[in-house]
C-alpha cells in the first residue's frame, strides 16, 4: 500500500514536471514577450534592454526555467512582470477559490438536477416527458456556453434585474450575496454537464433496469422507488463518476469562458490574460494548479471505486 502511494506521488510529480516544461517552452516559443506589451507605443531599444535585464528575461531559456522551478518548488512564486502582482496570492488565494466555487456550484447543480431528470426519462421511456428531456439535453450539449451566458445576462440581469451579472462574492463571507452572484455563472457552466449527466443516467439506467438482479428485486416485492433509486442508481454510479472525473478538463475549459462573461476573477481568466500578456510566471502557476486539480480529481475517482462497487474492494 505504501509502495502504491509512493508510486502514485512519484507519478504525479513526473506529470507536473512534464507539464511545466511543456507549457513553459510553448509560451516561450510563441512570438511576443511581456516587455513589448508593457512598453506599448513607448518602445525604445534602451528601455527594452533595460527592462529585459531587470526581469531576467535576457538569460537563456533553460536557465530561466530552472530559476523558475527552483523558486516555485521553494514556495517563492514571485511577482508578475508588469503589474508586480504577487503570484501566489493572486493564483492560490484569490483566483483558485473563485474557480473552485464556480466549478463546485456547477457540478452540484448538474448532479442535483441531472440525475433525477435522467432517472425520470429512463423510467418513462418513450413518454412525452422523455421526448422533452431529449430535446433539452441535445440543446444543452450543443449550445455554446459563452452565448448562453450572454443570453442569461440579458434576460435575468438586464431585463428582469433578478441577478447580478458580474463579480464574485465569497459565499463564506456573505452567503446569499455569494449565491446570487454565482447563480447565473453556475447555470451557464452547468448546462453542458447537466445535459450530459441526464443522457448518461438515462442510458445507463435503462440498461441496468433490464438486468436480472433488478427483476429479482422486483420479484421480492420491493417498491418501485426502491428498485429504481436504490438498486438502479447504485449501479450507474460507477460510469457516472468516471465520466465526471474525465470531464473535469472540459469543466475548467468552460470556466474560462464563464469567468470572462461574468467578470469572475478566477483561474481561467487569470491564465487567459497571462497568456495574452506573456506573463510566464502566472501561466506556470495556473497550469500547475490546474494540473494538480486534475490529478487530484482523478485520484479521488480512483479511490472512490471500491466504495461504489464492493467487487473492487480488496478482500
Amino acid at each position, binding site marked *: 500500500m505504501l509502495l502504491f502511494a509512493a508510486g502514485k506521488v512519484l507519478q504525479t510529480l513526473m506529470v507536473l514536471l512534464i507539464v511545466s516544461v511543456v507549457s513553459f517552452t510553448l509560451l516561450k516559443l510563441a512570438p511576443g514577450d511581456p516587455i513589448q506589451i508593457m512598453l506599448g507605443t513607448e518602445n525604445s531599444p534602451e528601455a527594452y534592454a533595460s527592462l529585459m535585464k531587470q526581469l531576467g528575461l535576457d538569460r537563456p531559456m533553460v536557465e530561466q526555467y530552472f530559476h523558475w522551478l527552483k523558486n516555485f518548488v521553494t514556495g517563492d512564486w514571485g511577482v508578475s512582470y508588469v*503589474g508586480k502582482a504577487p503570484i501566489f496570492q493572486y493564483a492560490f488565494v484569490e483566483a483558485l477559490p473563485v474557480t473552485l466555487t464556480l466549478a463546485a456550484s456547477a457540478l452540484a447543480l448538474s448532479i442535483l438536477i441531472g440525475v433525477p431528470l435522467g432517472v425520470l426519462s429512463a423510467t418513462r421511456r418513450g413518454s412525452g416527458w422523455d421526448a422533452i428531456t431529449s430535446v433539452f439535453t441535445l440543446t444543452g450539449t450543443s449550445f455554446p456556453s459563452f452565448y448562453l451566458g450572454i443570453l442569461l445576462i440579458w434576460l435575468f440581469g438586464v431585463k428582469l434585474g433578478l441577478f447580478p451579472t458580474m463579480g464574485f462574492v465569497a459565499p463564506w463571507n456573505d452567503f446569499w450575496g455569494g449565491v446570487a452572484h454565482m447563480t447565473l455563472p453556475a447555470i451557464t457552466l452547468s448546462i453542458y454537464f447537466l445535459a450530459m449527466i441526464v443522457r448518461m443516467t438515462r442510458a445507463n439506467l435503462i440498461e441496468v433496469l433490464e438486468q436480472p438482479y433488478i427483476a429479482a428485486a422486483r420479484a421480492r416485492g420491493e417498491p418501485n422507488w426502491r428498485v429504481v433509486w436504490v438498486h438502479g442508481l447504485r449501479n450507474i454510479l460507477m460510469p457516472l463518476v468516471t465520466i465526471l472525473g474525465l470531464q473535469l478538463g472540459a469543466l475548467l475549459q468552460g470556466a474560462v469562458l464563464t469567468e470572462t462573461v461574468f467578470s469572475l476573477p478566477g483561474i481561467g481568466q487569470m491564465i487567459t490574460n497571462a497568456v495574452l500578456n506573456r506573463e510566464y510566471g502566472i501561466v506556470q502557476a495556473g497550469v500547475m494548479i490546474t494540473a494538480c486539480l486534475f490529478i487530484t480529481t482523478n485520484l479521488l475517482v480512483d479511490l472512490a471505486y471500491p466504495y461504489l462497487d464492493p467487487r473492487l474492494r480488496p478482500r
Partner: protein
Amino acid sequence: MVDHKSILEERVLGSINRRDLMRGLGAGTAVLATGLGSRSAHANGGGHIRLGWIDHVDTLDPHFTGFLGAVKIHNNIYNGLLKVEYDGKRVSFVPDLAQTWEIQDDKVHTFKLRPGVKFHDGTPCDAEAVKWSVERVWKGTPRSPHAWKYKELASVEVLDPLTVRLTFNKPYAFLPVALTGSTGRAGTIVSKAAVEKYGDKFGRNPVGTGPFKFVSWRENDAIVIEKNPDYFEKGLPKLDRATFLLMKEPSAAIAAMLSGQIDGLGDVPVQFVSQLRAQKNLQVYGEIEGNYVYVGMNCKRAPFDDMDLRRAVAFAINREVAIKQAFFGHAIPAYTPISPPMTDFYDPDVAKSGRGQSFDLAKAKEFRAKSKVKGTIEPLFLASESGLFGTRLVQSVLPMLAAIDTKPKIEVVERAAWIQRRNSGEWDLFDFTWWADLDPDETITPEFRTGEAWNYPGWSNKRFDELVNAAQDTLDVAKRKEYYTEACDILMNEAPIAIVSHMPVFKAFSQKVKDFKYIPVDSLNLHTVSLG
C-alpha cells in the same frame, strides 16, 4: 519682442485635446453646482462610485505605464506639475502642483510649488521631491519608457524648498506635453519615500498627492481608491471611494451598466454607443479627440516601396464607408494626421481644400496604372482582434483595395504576436491608431521622422525631418503651423500611410453621477464627481 510665455500658454497651454483628464480650477464652480442630492453626511457629496473598466491596467506607477487605461486611474492618485483643462472648446495646460510657471529665454522653466502639499504617506511634496521624480524619469534605473521625453533636459535644480528649475538644451515647445507620458498630467510626481520602501512593487502600492489614496488592487477583479481628506484643493474630492471593476468582456460591462450594477464605464466600445445613448438614465460623453486611424504600408520592401502604389491605396479607401462599417458612424474622415482638437494647427476647411488624402477612385486607378507594380498583388495584411474595433477596419478596406487589383492576404494574430510582428516589420499592410495626442509634435514627429521607433512603415523624407525639427525649436504658433502644414502635405503625398479617420472616445455614466468634467483627452478625473 515676443513674449514667449504668453505664446506658450496660448499654444501649448492653450490648444490641444488629448485623452486624459483634468480637474482643478473648475472646482469652485463645481462646488456651487452640486450641493443638492448628496447622500452622505459630508458637506459635499460622498458615496462610492463603481466604474466598469475594460481597459488594460498595467501598473499604477505613472513613470512606467504604457496604457491610457492605467493613466486614467493615475490621474486620480497623482498630481503633475501641470494639468490639462477643457472649457468646452479648447484644452489648456494650467499649473497643478505648481502655483506658477515661468519661462526664461525659451529654455529655462521655473516652477513655484504649492506650499504644504503632502504625499499620502505624509512626506512633503517639495522642490526636492519634484526634482527626484523628474530625475527618476529622466535617468533613473531601470530606465523609464518615458525617458525620451526628457532627451533635451540639461539640468534640474532646487532653487529653494518650493522652487524647482528645469533647464533645456534648446527651446522646447513641447515640454508641457512631454513632461511625462501621463497624458494630461505633465510631470507626474511620486513619493520618493514610497518608491524606496516598495522598490519595484511601487506600481502596486502607489503613493501620490492626488485626491484619492490607493486602497487595493486585486488582479482581474478591482482597483479601489478612497478619499484623501488632506487633498490640497479645498472641498475635493467629493466621493468617499471609487472602485474600478476590471472586466474583460465589453458586452458584460454594457449589461452591468444597463442593469445599474455599475455607475459608469471608463471606455465604451463604439458598437455599443447607440444602445447606451438610447437609455434615458445614462449620460454618454464623447467628442473627437486627438487621434488618427491609419492603414500603414511597409515602405522598406516590395511592393509598397513603390510610392505610386501607396498613393493608389491612399485614394482607394472610401472613408465614409469605412467609418460606417468599422466605427458604426462614430468617426470623421481624416485628411491629414492633425486632428480637430489641435485647434491652432487644424484646418477646419481641410475637407474642401484638396489637401491631404481622400477617396477618389479615378485617381487611385491612375496611380495604380502609373505604378511599377503590375498585375494583381497579394500583400500581407497584419491584423489583430484586439483594440477598440478589432479587425473591422481591415474587413471594410479589403473590397476597396480589390478595386485597384490589390487583394491582401489577412493574417490575424493575437496581440502579443501582433506587436512583435509590427515592430519587426514582417508585414506589408497593417492598421493602427495613435491615441490621445495634444500636439502636432507628438502626433507626427516620433511617428514619421527618419529612423524613429514608432515609424513602423519605415518611411524617410529629408524635407519632412527638417520641417518637424524646425517646428520643435519654434515657439511662434503661426510659424509652427506653416511647418506642420508643409510636413503633413509631404507625408500625405508620399503616403507611407493611408489615413482614415479621427475618432471620439466614449464614456458613460448613470444619471446619478454628477459634475463629471469631460476632457477630450480620454481622461476620467473623479475629483469633482459626486453621486446624486
